[in-house]
């Protein structure tokens, strides 16, 4: 195993044993191979630096590199944005550890030497974020490499496999050139992703939102700290912001839009499809600390004389978001709320059974202008997991679920 610190600054010799220059930088070409050191930059003092390709390297050891060719076979160096520079882009920079789900700072890079016919390739295996890397960085060039290796053997290691490393690059063009995708990020839980975004600088945060698909971005933004939510959304262009907000639950979307400046939120709502925009506008009328401000308008309303089978078909065909679905509201012919049915009861019922026979014992509801503490009390008293919100003529208009209650209570702490 080799470390970037040991290779950077190494003396490079050509096939005849003549000194060529010192290793200044190692480049990876992600478009070609995601973990191979494809090119090595050799500095030569006042002369133009040279580039050795991976197949021109005969051997690498701490402090020394031998080439397979003559100096004249090496190309001159031209900077290339599509190359990932180990020293400049990785060392000392922050990366996202997608398996440990946090932001860490790179101390060193570990390489594996892979011998192929006549040359040796350096492959990145791990990123060192622990003490051994730190000690190496500190002592490199002051003590001989063997002595440093002895010291670091005794230290606890902390490394991250290269597959789990997600680089942070705030320049979108460079991201494309480096073939950076958000697959690793999208596979994380939105809450973890939000925690990570909170640790980064504004530009880096923005770059992550840019690289995610709308749905993942919406989930992650919904989990962000309130102040950061508005910062992130205000920096997006209205079209992209609308695409993301559309994917959010209407109550979350309304909360977010309410905190933006009126101009910004109008601009975004103009870009949203009319139906979603209308839903959100409806919610925006309510103060944040009332039942109306807590509720979600995505609810399933069915006629009280429907059968269980009909209700299930309705849910299936209307592509109701299932994550938040806890119960179904029943209404009579005047659209007045007559009861609610828990999903669990619906699950066990017979297909022909009338849903009105499955309702909970007592009919509970609140009006949109009820204060949030009244809602909390109802949830506590009746051990609710969801509560229907009705208008003045007792028609269901929304639903408050227990997760709304939890987040509003936390916000009050």
């Amino acid at each position, binding site marked *: 195993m080799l470390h970037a610190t040991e290779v950077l600054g190494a003396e490079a010799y050509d096939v005849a044993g003549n000194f060529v220059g010192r290793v200044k930088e190692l480049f990876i070409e992600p478009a070609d191979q995601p973990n191979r050191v494809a090119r090595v930059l050799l500095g030569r003092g006042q002369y133009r630096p040279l580039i050795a390709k991976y197949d021109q390297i005969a051997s690498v050891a701490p402090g020394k590199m031998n080439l397979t060719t003559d100096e004249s076979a090496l190309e001159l160096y031209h900077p290339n944005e599509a190359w990932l520079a180990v020293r400049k882009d990785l060392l000392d920079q922050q990366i996202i550890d997608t398996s440990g789900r946090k932001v860490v*700072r790179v101390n060193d890079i570990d390489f594996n030497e892979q011998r192929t016919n006549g040359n040796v390739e350096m492959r990145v295996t791990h990123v060192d974020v622990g003490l051994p890397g730190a000690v190496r960085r500190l002592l490199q060039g002051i003590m001989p490499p063997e002595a440093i290796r002895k010291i670091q053997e005794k230290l606890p290691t902390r490394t991250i496999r290269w597959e789990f490393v997600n680089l942070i690059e705030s320049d979108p063009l460079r991201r494309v050139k480096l073939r950076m995708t958000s697959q690793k990020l999208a596979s994380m839980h939105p809450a973890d992703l939000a925690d990570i975004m909170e640790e*980064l*600088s504004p*530009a880096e945060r923005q770059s992550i939102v840019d690289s995610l698909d709308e749905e993942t971005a919406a989930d992650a933004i919904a989990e962000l700290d309130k102040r950061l939510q508005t910062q992130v959304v205000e920096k997006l262009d209205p079209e992209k912001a609308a695409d993301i907000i559309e994917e959010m639950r209407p109550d979350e979307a309304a909360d977010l839009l309410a905190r933006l400046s009126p101009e910004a939120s109008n601009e975004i709502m103009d870009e949203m499809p009319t139906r979603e925009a209308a839903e959100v506008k409806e919610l925006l009328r309510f103060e944040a600390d009332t039942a109306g401000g807590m509720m979600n308008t995505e609810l399933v309303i069915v006629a009280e004389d429907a059968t269980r089978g009909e209700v299930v078909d309705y849910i299936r065909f209307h592509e109701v978001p299932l994550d938040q679905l806890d119960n179904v509201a029943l209404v009579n012919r005047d659209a007045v709320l007559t009861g609610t049915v828990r999903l669990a009861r619906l699950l066990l019922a017979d297909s022909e059974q009338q849903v009105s026979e499955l309702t909970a014992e007592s009919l509970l509801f609140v009006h949109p202008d009820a204060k949030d503490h009244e809602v909390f009390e109802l949830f506590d008293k009746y051990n609710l997991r969801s509560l229907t919100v009705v208008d003045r003529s007792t028609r269901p208009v929304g639903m408050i679920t227990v997760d709304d209650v939890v987040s509003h209570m936390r916000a009050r702490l």
Partner: protein
Amino acid sequence: MTYVELVTTFGKWKERWSVFARRTRALRRRLAVILAVVGPGIITSNVDNDAGGITTYTLAGSQFGYKLLWVLIPLTIALYVSEEMCARMGVVTGKGLSDLIREEFGFRSTFFVMAAALLVDLGNTVAEFAGVAASMEIFGVTKYISVPLAAIVVWILVVRGTYRSVEKIFLIACAFYLSYVVSAFFAKPDWLLAAKETVVPSFNLQKDYLLMFIGLVGTTIAPWQFFYLQAGFVEKRVAAKQYKHARLDVLVGSISCMAIVFFVIVCTAATLHAHGMTNISSAKEAALALAPLAGKWASFLFAFGLLNASLFAASILPLSTAHVICEGLGFEAGIDRKIPEAPIFYGLYGGLIVAGGAIILIPHAPLFKILLLSQVANGVWLPIVLIFILLLVNRRDLMGEYVNSLSFNIVAWFISIAMIVITLLSVFAPTGAG
């Protein structure tokens, strides 16, 4: 009044209130936006008036009366200019100062800056606990009780708190500095003369005067405060478009810090200096000497101010140091994390408090030498930090349109070089001002 009338009146008032609430919504929102940013600048500048600072100002007032007051205006400008750069960096890049040093200057530079931070801040922490011990002794409490108690209070404050709650406590501590304003009024100073000496510079070349001048400058700008200030804005997640508010926070902080210095000097000048007590050697002595001259309350408030300043700085210094070191070297940090999540952070924080407190409790500890040494370390460290700041704040790739303008750069470099020269002078010509 009948019941119905009562209800209608109540209804009317409720209606009026909601109209008022609706009309002022925009105003309240604006105020909330400003208040959300305020904090780091005010706290950092005030914590600058720590035990060592108060001592120096006390000595300046008792030795030279109102003569050194003119230094405060240029010092306010220097404080503002240097702090503003850090605030700007924090707001624009969203990264702490040690983060930036690490990313732009590599591991080794960072390591040495951090090692220096640890050493210097340990010395400073000792000084703060010495301040706690001295002020509590005025109230008749032995240091063997007051110092461990203070250490425990400081530890609990941070370990049990969140960033927001701790910041509120710190802001209240800032308000307690007003005790110096009150004791200055008790001292019945010659306000007219004080005002004149503040505006009209009166330089003289006496050796003692020069030494005190250097001490005053050296104690006002401490290197660690830049790290704390920048981290404060980063942790509050102030966005670049709120930069104006951040700048205002720094400005108010610098001015209020210097206002307190003004009142400390005025208080001691009007009492101690006016009565010929020019050879006072510590803040404790000054507080005790105040009692017969300006009354028990002035003395009490003066001692209370010292206690507040020392405790305040003793909570922030170790915290800031642990933060800076962990951030730079890549360990988990922050009081919003639990102890097992950030062992090194809490280890450093606890270690500094324990070591700082323990050194004070050693009988016959060479406190004076420790304080002197910490000031020397401060002086050596300051130039390095200031140069890092100036290099970073001029990087267009980091700061974009927020880089220093040419004229600002001239002012900033001039002030930094002046600060460096004066601080180095203070190191090599110790004033004993602590």
